[in-house]
């Protein structure tokens, strides 16, 4: 009992002292051998459940944070946060909801080319990171959100993103070019037939679509 008490005090102190959220394995490394870190974390979380400070878990990372319901009354110096551009916020949302997602897919959704600076900004804030390469033509890099992103927005996991369920249900989380979402049967539709009739611009547009379709198809 006294040993358990020592363990829980140590765990509490570790999490209080750390400036960053700590993973279970990092905690294991610092706790005495044989300590039931998982069980202790549960116990500690329960102890703090009703207090002004909570023990939160985000993707396996543990940290003490002030209780959400106190936000309005908490008169503490706020950190000056960088205001993100609309492009960056949109891109962040697309990465968070569609992940893993390639740059081409982000552009499918937004309908515009992505500025290099947009991804850079999000990367610098520690909210996105490169995921696995997609096993398609060109093996494009994918982007995923980080634990830091979830921590910043007080989310436990990706499934807690607001409106995620409805978006999934209504099919809005499709990453393909829009035309593919309605016309799935024949991917290489009448490109040649179009060329003769239509303006150059249209052909360009169609060209781009076709290329994307090819990538998806392969």
């Amino acid at each position: 009992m006294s040993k358990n008490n020592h363990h829980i005090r140590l765990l509490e102190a570790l999490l209080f002292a750390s400036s960053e959220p700590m993973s279970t394995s990092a905690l294991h490394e610092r706790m005495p051998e044989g300590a039931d870190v998982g069980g202790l974390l549960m116990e500690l979380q329960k102890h703090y459940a009703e207090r002004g400070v909570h023990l939160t878990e985000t993707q396996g990372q543990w940290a003490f944070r002030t209780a959400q319901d106190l936000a309005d009354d908490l008169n503490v110096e706020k950190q000056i946060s960088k205001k993100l551009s609309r492009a960056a916020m949109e891109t962040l949302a697309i990465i968070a909801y569609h992940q893993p997602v390639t740059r081409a897919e982000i552009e499918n959704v937004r309908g515009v080319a992505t500025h290099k600076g947009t991804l850079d900004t999000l990367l610098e804030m520690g909210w996105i990171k490169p995921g696995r390469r997609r096993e398609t033509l060109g093996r494009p890099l994918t982007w995923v959100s980080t634990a830091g992103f979830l921590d910043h927005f007080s989310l436990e996991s990706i499934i807690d993103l607001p409106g995620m369920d409805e978006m999934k249900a209504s099919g809005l989380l499709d990453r393909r070019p829009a035309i593919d979402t309605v016309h799935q049967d024949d991917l290489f539709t009448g490109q040649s037939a179009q060329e003769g009739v239509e303006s150059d611009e249209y052909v360009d547009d169609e060209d781009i679509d076709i290329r994307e379709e090819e990538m998806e198809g392969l």
Partner: protein
Amino acid sequence: MVGIADAVQENAQDMSVFIKEDGEMSAVDHLLLDIDGYEGPIDVLLELSRNQKVDLAKISILELVRQYLVFIERAQQRNLELAAEYLVMAAWLAYLKSRLFLPKEENSDEPSAEDIAQALQFQLQRLEAMQKAADKLLALPQLGQEIFARGQPEGLEMNVVTQWNVSLYDMLKAYGDIERRKEASQYDLPTFDLMSTDSAMSRLSKMLGNLPKTGAHSVWATLNSFMPEDIEDSLYGRSTLASTFTAGLELAKQGGLEFRQDGLFRPIYMRKMQPSDGMNYGEEDQDVDA
């Protein structure tokens, strides 16, 4: 009388159209003023479709196309330089509009105008969903704004103690290596006992000449059978094999020799050919194939 009533009504209709267009104009002008705030044509289309004040699933694509074309027209009247992608979209929408009016083509491979319109609608819905999602994200309690981490973390230290895994032997060996390197720097140019391609060539020609003949050819003999016996030195042995093969290739190029191998890593056979006229060569070649 009837005519007047009709005229009045018509006039009123004209007025309403005029007012509507006027209102639309100011909305479009407003859009144009703020064009830098929009992220490309799809974003502008989304803003225009919001003007219809209906669920995106129910918007009129034709109406949307009309509004967009008005928007482009106004931009051109004002000599505003829109990015090329806005014009591409305009051309594309004009095409879509004409297709929507045409009777549906049967058995066409290309997506129908309805499909394209539906795709555009989906594109708008998807982008709107993401824009709303971005707003919802920003409305969440954020770290450092509504929720706080510990203000004065003591920090955790991990004292890494390095144990140098270096033995006395390691050090002495290192010293020995320096000494060796110094001695090694005074070296003689190495000489190897090898068989040159030239000597392999004369050797091979002589041996081929001694092979029993059947007609224009000699019998087949393996490459190995041309190797000198009693080779003790493996390097010399290898160089002989390589040189003999190279010499053989050279002879084959000249038409004095033929190669045969029945499969990968199988023995290589050679036979001498009488370098005579092509006819003869061709005939014999067919025989070999058969």
